[in-house]
């Protein structure tokens, strides 16, 4: 019984842990670092659904993420939307973006898809730069509600009347819940028909098609789910940062990390991106404090080269081989 539901129990425990961490009043830096790491768990997991299972490399993570971020900002500006609404709409629109790009380019070879995704971040950033309603190139400040409510329950109250003492803690918990949900989705896909079809596509797309796999349809489904989850990750950003400008939302680092973390952790199974993002996310957070944030891309680049040459199946693949 316990064996069988090990994963589900793990999810509940992780969620509880996220909640307890918000209740112990740590130094604010830890919430900030934890938020960044959890956000990377979500982003890498999202990337891996298409990139790891299906073998289609998406260089446009920053585009999907930035879209989510700016959809949330636009909704706040427009009518002061609540965070849950922002997440839903941002996810839906980022999923639509995935559908559009996928529909145009996924009929072609993987290279064209990769190139198209590379372009979308640039196109979207240029667009936002010129859209004053959401702050344009100068960026925008967001004032989160002082005492947000959800279904009539006070979520945050500085005076102690809510579940969380401050907004950062609540958003840390929310990001934890979203990250866990994404891992659950990725794992469900991996062990289902969609995951097996995507694997066949990755191994040999023409053979997959000839064996009855509707390749275009499966690739589109994967792109939509993957893009939507990236949009969700972006939607929490404005409330968390309270100030966003285009270079932050469309940061190239997202694109690099979202592909490097699964590759270093192991792309063939759900736990790979989780391991990769927790490990590299932690290294990066430590590097930010001890050295500088500029060093991060260098670190990730070096690790990526080392792993691709020494352990092409990532950390998880390396351990699984040792156990055989």
């Amino acid at each position, binding site marked *: 019984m316990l064996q069988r539901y090990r994963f589900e129990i793990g999810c509940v425990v992780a969620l509880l842990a996220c909640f307890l961490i918000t209740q112990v009043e740590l130094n604010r830096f830890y919430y900030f670092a934890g938020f960044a790491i959890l956000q990377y768990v979500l982003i890498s997991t999202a990337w891996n659904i298409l990139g790891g299972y299906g073998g289609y490399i998406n260089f446009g993570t920053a585009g999907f993420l930035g879209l989510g971020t700016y959809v949330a900002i636009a909704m706040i500006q427009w009518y002061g939307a609540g965070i849950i609404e922002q997440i839903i709409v941002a996810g839906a629109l980022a999923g639509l973006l995935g559908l559009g790009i996928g529909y145009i380019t996924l009929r072609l070879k993987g290279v064209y898809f990769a190139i198209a995704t590379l372009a979308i971040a640039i196109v979207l950033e240029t667009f936002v730069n010129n859209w004053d309603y959401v702050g344009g190139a100068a960026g925008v400040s967001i004032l989160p509600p002082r005492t947000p409510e959800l279904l009539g329950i006070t979520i945050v109250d500085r005076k102690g009347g809510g579940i969380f003492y401050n907004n950062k803690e609540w958003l840390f918990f929310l990001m934890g819940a979203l990250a866990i949900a994404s891992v659950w989705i990725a794992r469900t896909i991996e062990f289902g028909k969609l995951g097996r079809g995507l694997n*066949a596509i990755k191994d040999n797309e023409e*053979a997959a098609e000839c064996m009855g796999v*509707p390749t275009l349809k499966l690739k589109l489904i994967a792109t939509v789910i993957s893009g939507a989850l990236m949009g969700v990750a972006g939607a929490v950003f404005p409330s968390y940062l309270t100030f966003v400008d285009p270079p932050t939302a469309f940061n190239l680092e997202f694109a690099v990390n979202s592909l490097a973390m699964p590759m270093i952790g192991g792309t063939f199974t759900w736990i790979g991106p989780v391991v990769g993002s927790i490990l590299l996310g932690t290294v990066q957070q430590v590097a930010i404090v001890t050295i500088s944030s500029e060093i991060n891309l260098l670190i990730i680049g070096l690790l990526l080269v080392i792993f691709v040459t020494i352990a092409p199946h990532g950390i998880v693949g390396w351990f699984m081989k040792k156990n055989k």
Partner: protein
Amino acid sequence: MAEALLKVDSVTKNFGGFTALSEVTTEVKAGERFGLIGPNGSGKTTLINCISGTLTNDGGSIIFDGQDLQGMKAHVRTAAGITRTFQIPRPFHSMTIIDNLKIPLEFVSASGRAQTEIRDEAMSILETMGMAEKADEETSGLTQIELRKLELARAIAAKPKLLISDEAMAGLTGNEVDEVTQILINFNEQGMTIIMIEHIMRAVMQFSQRVICLDAGQLIAEGTPDIIQKDKGVERAYLGV
């Protein structure tokens, strides 16, 4: 004899300015063992690609089981009953042997059935191919004949009405050729129509009830193995004179 299962009518395929198939017309009857021969580069694989839907023919029509295949995607054709193997085996290399077979089972022939049933089905196909004990092995360690057999087994798992085998015997020893020929005959006896593309004349002539020969994209001969073997045009095509 029975009605035509596959009708290929004036099928033409160009690659740029090069005509790989030029108005090829032929018919394959239900339940038939059909041979397709021709020298290297004569267009055999191209014709298979057009029938299976991995390429689109530029002219002519292909009718399968009374249905025009024009514009139909390859995976839909597989579901309709056409499955092909690849001349150079293309296993799903990250999967075990049995998982390779489970793909067509899950997506086509046993769609919607429980995983345990699908596994049993895959296992029974592997047994008929004499590969049962390899079921849970990776494809990377397979020998040439095992790779060829896996390619066939995976196609058979789709339970096709028409199986197209593209040079399943290339690189095999004499005994292995006989073994694979026998496997194909067994499936034919269970009602599967089979097109065999082969360079090994002994095998294709022994197997086929009817043979066609392509040369430079054109159909140059059609008939029983006896007739084809005596055909001057076929001889000329192969000798290159």
